[in-house]
């Protein structure tokens, strides 16, 4: 099968998985523990991290955009799109930069992404609410980002090890020289 078709099919699967994880984590009553808007584990970040490391920036970007739009559409709340998109894009940019540094493991990259996601959401909230008062949430959100990021990092590390053991990594972009060929195959 053509490599681009394979990448496209994989992106579609990963988008569906990210949507499923986003939906599933709503059933975890984290808001009861920390009743702040925007508090969540960010399990879908495992998918973004996987796509970023195994498929490249282009497909990961496509999956993220598709997940944000479809997630908002399914939730019936398009107003939430600005928050998920701002947080998601900033998180992906930071994770891509952190990964390129070569010093951080999947844990560190995930924590950076979680913190960036929360910062992006606070920026979006300041723009939407037209107030800087929401920045008072940032300390709590950053602390939760460290723990949530480490947790999703652990999940991602497990997935990465399984992917390596199954030989998937050898066939991914990671195993070969990065080209722009696969980047056109985003969902």
């Amino acid at each position, binding site marked *: 099968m053509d490599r681009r078709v394979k990448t496209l099919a994989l992106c579609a699967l990963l988008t569906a998985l990210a949507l499923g994880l986003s939906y599933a984590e709503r059933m975890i009553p984290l808001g009861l523990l920390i009743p702040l*808007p925007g508090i969540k584990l960010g399990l879908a970040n495992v998918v973004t991290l996987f796509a970023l490391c195994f498929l490249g920036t282009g497909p990961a970007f496509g999956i993220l955009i598709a997940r944000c739009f479809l997630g908002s559409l399914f939730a019936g709340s398009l107003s939430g799109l600005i928050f998920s998109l701002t947080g998601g894009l900033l998180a992906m940019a930071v994770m891509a930069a952190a990964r390129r540094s070569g010093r951080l493991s999947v844990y560190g990259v995930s*924590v950076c992404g979680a913190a960036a996601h929360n910062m992006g959401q606070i920026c979006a909230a300041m723009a939407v609410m037209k107030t800087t008062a929401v920045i008072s949430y940032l*300390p709590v959100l950053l602390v939760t980002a460290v723990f949530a990021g480490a947790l999703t990092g652990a999940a991602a590390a497990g997935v990465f090890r399984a992917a390596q053991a199954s030989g998937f990594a050898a066939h991914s972009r990671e195993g070969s020289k990065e080209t722009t060929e696969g980047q056109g195959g985003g969902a």
Partner: protein
Amino acid sequence: MIKTRFGLWDGAVCALILLLALGLALGVGAAARSEGAVVTVSADGALALQKPLEGTEGRFPIDGEYPLTVCISGGKVWVEDSHCPGGDCQAQRPISRPGQSIVCLPGRITVAIRGGDGAADLIVG
């Protein structure tokens, strides 16, 4: 391939983020020392209510896409009867110090306590 074991640099990143959170929290705490605190409620960026924190007692309905009621009593502020789908604003604990806020994202309503005498909302660094 990206490493899958937690390393020293990962610990450093976590520590850095926690330090940043601590710095921000201290900044908010510094604002809390100002006197003459005022409760402000903004709906979609426009001021909907402003009351002094001390000496105010009552329930104040706030109109909007998702109406809610702001309660001020005993130097504390909290949200009741919120019609928003999430209900996070209602679940939040009462706030009592300048710099603290309760936000209803779906309703675009912000309840904040600001320091008196033109004190800054937040002091960083």
